[in-house]
């Protein structure tokens, strides 16, 4: 991706700025890199000044998954999801968790980008309907198929809700339940009360959760939080490699030697797709296809 500006000799471009900032960030570690990641509950998002964010050089800022700028969630919904994610992966500035890694930004961009599903999904009726009995094969079913409720988990994902619908409805169910239990919406509860609710959801022990079910809502939040914490930062989460640094994963490396495989890695800087050395330097097709924008970009540059 090249903009006209970049072709002008001596032009100071966003790409060049980011290149320098990238080196600084690598040596400085955390700290100011998180400055633009300010999605403190109830506060407006920071302006687009985070030069260390894994933005996409040469693209308008609107293409960058800017931490705390949401395309799908309302501010209130984002706050609720972040409160939930923060209980799954708690953290603070010294030890980043879901908030510091911009997990909700990741989830928001996933939901905004995929009208239905991010993963291949067969989404045609008839959909499963749990029942207490043992129904037969039901040839000719068109709308619903009855399935013994105990067997249903064996069949995997069978929801008739898209992720967008599941979040919208699930957040309402979550707040309704929180109010019924503790008199406040989920995000306003203390950690202990939030943990109590999440534990009950995980065990599928909240009867008022129907669509999505409590366990399904928990599983969706956990899966998306893990993706936002541990997927490549290009997708908007895992800010400053918070997830990978937490577990000691060096990220997308080009190669290890057999010696490293047996005895451990030589010192490596954590890196993502953007920093992978090019396979065929200078070749026109030696690019990373950026996941958010679909833009092609030469790696290692």
């Amino acid at each position, binding site marked *: 991706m090249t903009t006209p500006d970049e072709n002008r000799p001596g032009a100071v471009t966003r790409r060049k700025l980011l290149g320098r900032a990238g080196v600084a960030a690598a040596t400085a570690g955390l700290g100011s890199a998180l400055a633009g990641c300010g999605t403190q509950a109830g506060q407006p998002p920071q302006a687009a000044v985070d030069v260390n964010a894994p933005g996409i050089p040469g693209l308008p800022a609107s293409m960058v998954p800017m931490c705390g700028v949401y395309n799908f969630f309302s501010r209130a919904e984002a706050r609720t999801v972040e409160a939930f994610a923060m*209980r799954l992966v708690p953290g603070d500035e010294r030890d980043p968790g879901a908030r510091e890694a911009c997990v909700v930004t990741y989830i928001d961009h996933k939901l905004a980008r995929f009208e239905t599903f991010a993963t*291949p999904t067969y989404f045609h009726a008839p959909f499963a309907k749990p029942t207490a009995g043992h129904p*037969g094969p039901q040839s000719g079913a068109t709308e619903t198929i009855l*399935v013994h409720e105990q*067997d249903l988990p064996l069949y995997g994902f069978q929801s008739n809700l898209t992720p967008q619908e599941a979040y919208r409805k699930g957040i309402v169910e979550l707040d309704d339940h929180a109010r019924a239990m503790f008199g406040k919406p989920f995000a306003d509860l203390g950690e202990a009360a939030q943990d109590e609710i999440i534990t009950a959801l995980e065990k599928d022990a909240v009867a008022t959760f129907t669509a999505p079910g409590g366990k399904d809502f928990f599983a969706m939040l956990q899966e998306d939080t893990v993706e936002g914490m*541990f997927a*490549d930062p290009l997708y908007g989460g895992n800010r400053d490699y918070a997830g990978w640094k937490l577990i000691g994963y060096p990220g*997308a490396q080009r190669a290890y030697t057999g010696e490293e*495989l047996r005895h451990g890695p030589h010192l490596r800087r954590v890196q993502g*797709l953007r920093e992978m050395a090019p396979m065929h330097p200078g070749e026109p097709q030696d690019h990373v296809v950026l996941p958010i924008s679909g833009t092609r970009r030469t790696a290692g540059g």
Partner: protein
Amino acid sequence: MTTQHPKVDVVTIGAGWTATMLAARLCPHGTEMVSLEQGTSRWAYPDFAHDHDSLRYSVRYAMMVDLARETWTWRPNPRAPALPMRQYGSFNPGEGLGGSAIHWSGQLWRYLETDFRYRSHVTERYGASKIPAGCTAQDWGITYDDLEPYYDEFEYDIGASGHAGNVRGEIIPGGNPFEAPRSRHYPNPALAVTPMGEMFATASTELGHHPFTQPAGILSRAFTDPWGRSRASCLYCGFCTRFGCEVDAKSSPVNTHLPVALETGNYEVRTHAKVLAIEVDSDGTASGVTYLDAHGAEHFQPADVVVVSAFTLENNRILLLSRGKAHPNGIGNDRGRVGKNYTYQIYPAPVVGAFSGKKLNMYMGNTCTIKIIYDFNGDTFDHKDLDFIGGSQLYSEPCEREPVNSVVGLTTASGKSWGREWKNEIRRNWDSYAGIVTEGESLPYTDQFLDLDPNYRDRFGRPLLRITFDWHDNQRSLWRYVAQRAKEIMRQMNPSRIVSFTPELAPYNIQDYQSTHPTGGCIMGTDPSHSVTNSYGQVWDTPNVFVTGAALFPQNPGANPTGTVAAVTYRAADAIRDRYFKSPGELLT
């Protein structure tokens, strides 16, 4: 309006590995061949150059069949309702040039001699009553000796890496002493192994077992193949299964047989070509295949021979969907055998251990940088006093671990997979835990089969394939036995904590990934009333149709299918080339 193409000698459904193997063995001799591939064209460069993206490939299945268009339905038994696999779980069939052999793991095996004579062997050694009721296990109709030259040739064509255990009867230390005799050593040495693999090997040896390094279709050093092409060795990058290899170190159709076939000028692959059905003439033989191109326009490709060479499940479905006057229940199904003897494989890890303070480098390498034992596989151990037949591999957990799909697998001592305590657990131990994994036999039963689903359809309105499958007592007993052996080895490895132990095999579910080894349904045999094809994959009731791949397996041994898929395909290719073309339409004997 259907576009009519000029007739060719052979048309294949799919351009995966078996199709390109056939092309590489037939086209240099003048055979004109076309392969119809539903997916896109793709090569190491530029398509795999920057694919180290766990989210895109492992979580969002970029290389797999798009389930939005079609999937498979499943039910545990014939009395239960079937539902579609709406999102990926149990298995991951690939789509695109090279098929599933682009994203495969490279685990490369020859089956044991007894695997090919399953029913005869069990009956001879233990008596017929040892075979469970309702079990339809049978002999393949070929022996290991029939396939040995083809195993050998395939291993040298792709530059297999491994340490031989039995060369012409001589047991070689460090290899698999239970393997059938091979005529030569592997062309390349075994891959490097991670600390977990070495710990597993040490513990197994102490217990009297015989560990060896996983043989691999992945180059352990630079290699020049018999066609004069050179490829680089494995980079141990940690992105292998579900990924394409950016340096072509992982052998696949696009770096072995496909370029060889294309160079002859007699081979053509049409991508984005979705085959709808095999067409049949009034005499009952196949006349060619109908397919749709990327724009939805219909084409007819006439051919003297039609090869059904897609993934196992689609091969079954294509035969069942190709119904007409001559074959009202589908090609190969005149005696109702298509879909029978569907089998799978036992996969999960019965025991997982943590080794606090020890880095296992699990995120490096590939699925083959491991150690494995065959002491409890096949009939390498005496079953006289056991309540099951068959066996399982046991091996150290495959490497190439990716954070996004592994962190939740490490739970705390109290079983939690979220919260501060869990965060500290993955901080300390994400690279310090690993399991011992099974890969166990699956036997065929009369209530375990494939047919067309009555409720769910694909984007063209055609029925989806329905899988009816669950574990039976024999497999539960087998699991109970090998789980204990795995636990013994894990204990010997002295973990700081046993993270999990699963003594009983849970009911089959289609949600968890287990292996991409569904087999059977179009099985080979010697008797048309108990099989769909002969040992060349030639369909009994439609002799100018051939089936390739693991759909031919009468039951599934405890090992990955690719090596045997290749050997069977090589043998069929030679028979088609040397004998079938001399008397077309006749059954090969």
